[in-house]
């Protein structure tokens, strides 16, 4: 049927497109959809806004406006209107970093931390090449160099420094790095043991893993501190710092083993069979075929274990190690600085430190996860 010529009620041109209703697009639409979509939602939104308005200004005033940024001692921070006492943090900063480590030797700590930071960046940046070299340096060479630098070696002109003087941020990082370096291979070995077809190997792995995972870290540290010296010959007393390091490493290995086992279980059987068909023995099958794939699969889980390990390093204070949190605990009781805001300031600073590290690690693992899933969806 053709349009009737001249008939006024038939359009010859399409109607102009109307703008969308103002209430469903733009800022207003967004507000309606996300904040005021119903009576309950509106009530919650208002409550949340009231709560934020109640907390946030006070927090900002406490942290920034009323805060004392520089002061020679705690006098200014004791004023009733004073907020956070950042002067306390800047004043105690080197104590937080190195505790009682001799001040003329702190360059050794700085150098160790710098090398560690470079190696870690190398390993974490996906674009940096030669990962094998980096891993070898980090897992083998770096621990040796760090040990020599930190504890000293007379023949190199570095005076010995007893671990009794070690403390602060660098000990926290040291404990977590040692835990990481030992827990990854330890966890892989335990996970392989748990999935071994040899019953004795399997049983030993299962007993160790379930035992360590069933008890709190504190009791493992107690055991390392009180029982380790009893288990070794009388004339050999393990170092005060070495004992919690052993405890933390064993503890982290058991948790890592379960993560790695998850990855091994997720491997399709064809990978094992394919490797065997190529004539690879057990060692080469695991090293060349299975583990590279299984470990990549569980990178998020591995990083989560690292985060937990990093937070757990605070517990070594129970056996007398001056980790970062312990130095904060000691510094806040200093009578020169004693005041109503000192404890809070110290804890906020410590919380910020731990948050930056843990949040950074979790963000990194999320990014990795996205990369990997993109890889898998191809």
């Amino acid at each position: 049927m053709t349009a009737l010529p001249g008939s006024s009620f038939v359009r010859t041109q399409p109607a102009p497109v109307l703008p969308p209703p103002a209430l469903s697009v733009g800022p207003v639409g967004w507000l309606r959809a996300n904040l005021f979509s119903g009576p309950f939602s509106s009530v919650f939104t208002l409550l949340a806004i009231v709560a934020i308005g109640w907390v946030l200004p006070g927090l900002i005033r406490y942290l920034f406006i009323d805060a004392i940024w520089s002061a020679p001692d705690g006098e200014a921070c004791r004023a009733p209107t004073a907020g956070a006492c950042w002067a306390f943090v800047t004043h105690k900063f080197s104590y937080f970093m190195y505790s009682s480590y001799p001040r003329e030797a702190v360059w050794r700590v700085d150098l160790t931390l710098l090398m560690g930071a470079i190696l870690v960046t190398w390993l974490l940046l996906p674009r940096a090449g030669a990962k094998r070299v980096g891993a070898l340096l980090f897992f083998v060479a770096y621990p040796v160099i760090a040990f020599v630098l930190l504890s000293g070696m007379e023949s190199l002109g570095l005076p010995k420094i007893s671990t009794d003087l070690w403390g602060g941020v660098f000990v926290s990082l040291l404990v977590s790095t040692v835990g990481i370096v030992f827990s990854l291979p330890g966890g892989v070995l335990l996970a392989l043991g748990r999935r071994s077809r040899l019953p004795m190997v399997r049983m030993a792995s299962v007993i160790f893993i379930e035992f360590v995972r069933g008890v709190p870290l504190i009791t493992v540290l107690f055991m390392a501190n009180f029982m380790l010296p009893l288990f070794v010959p009388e004339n050999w007393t393990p170092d005060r710092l070495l004992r919690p390091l052993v405890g933390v490493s064993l503890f982290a290995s058991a948790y890592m083993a379960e993560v790695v086992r998850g990855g091994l279980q997720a491997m399709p059987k064809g990978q094992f069979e394919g490797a065997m068909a190529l004539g690879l023995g057990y060692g080469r099958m695991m090293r060349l075929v299975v583990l590279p794939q299984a470990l990549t699969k569980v990178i998020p889980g591995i990083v989560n274990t690292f985060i937990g390990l990093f937070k757990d390093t605070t517990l070594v204070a129970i056996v007398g190690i001056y980790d970062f949190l312990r130095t904060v605990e000691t510094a806040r009781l200093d009578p020169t600085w004693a005041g109503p805001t000192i404890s809070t300031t110290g804890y906020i600073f410590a919380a910020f430190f731990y948050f930056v590290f843990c949040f950074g690690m979790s963000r990194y693992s999320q990014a990795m996860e996205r990369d990997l899933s993109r890889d898998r969806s191809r």
Partner: protein
Amino acid sequence: MSDQSPPAGATAVNPLYDPRVRGFVYQALLVATIAFLGWQAIANALANMRARNIPTNFDFWTKTSGFDINFTLIKYSAVSTYGDAFWVGLLNTLMVAAIGIVLATLLGFIVGVARLSPNWIVAKLALVYVESIRNVPLLLQLLFWYNAVLKPLPGVRDSVVIPGLFGNPFAYLNNRGLVLPEPRVGQGFWLVQLALLLGVLLAVGFALWARRAQRETGDIKPVWTVGVALVIGLPTLAYFALGEPLTLDYPVLRGFNFSGGLRVLPETVALIVGLTIYTASFIAEIVRSGIQSVAKGQSEAAAALGLRAGPMLRLVVIPQAMRVITPPLTNQFLNLTKNSSLAVFIGYPDLVQIFAGTVLNQTGAAVQVIAITMAVYLAISLVTSLAMGVYNRRFTLRER
């Protein structure tokens, strides 16, 4: 691990390359190493303990402890034995763990659901809570609650008043702890408890009967309404029939202290608050991922079958989400129980503080004390994982 058996008639494999022989040798080596190390450790420990005059038996268990504990659930004094001290510590640990688990689960479910809320600001607040709490060590949070929040509170006379339902003071918070109204049990209260027990039994019976009736006739009985009515209604009836045998004894400020009421130590408050807030952030993430793991098609199919929002959640979404949520949730409960050992840092008298702390230092029996402490935690987690195993066998998805 190629276990190729030689074809018939072929010469026997060199035993050096026979996987069975190899496996046997490896295991023998492993067992020998473990046995050797264990034997060495025990021999060394015995020699060292004898040399240092450390007791090697459990005689200390029945000896008088000589120290007092400021918070006990059972009768205990300085003349009690070390064994009594152990039970006090164990009960204190279990109490904190039980309260913490209940509160953390409630808070965690609320925050987890809020994370998925279509309301932008509510979801963002929940996200901020989860991320900021999860990434800060629990020990730091406990120290914060104890040293920076509860310790600087005003003294008894200037207590912070927590208002009750009708505006009158309900509880008081000061630097000596939290003072709550104490429930006073009157005469005949056991009848109310009996009524509660009866209500629970009847409700369970009704639910069983309703299930059978539904299987046979297809009729759906109001299980929840009747159950709730029985569990709440029966004790309430008994309570009023007996003339309100349970009253709240409100604390009153007299002179320098409160008379009446129930005083909770600041250590206990800090530990429970810290554990609850920390664990809830993990539970929230578990709940969120559990709910998100239920495929959208499930609720769409339920809607297509004509289910309304309530039954859809109850019968389709939540049962499937719970299957994902329960195992990690149990793990968090175990973590909370194990984390309660951080009590030692703020001085709450839990198992580790009393037993692996004071008792160990006084008796010097390090090996025995630490072994018992570890055995307790191990037993708790083994029992929980056994229960989890039973649950998993019952509820895992059975695919055809």
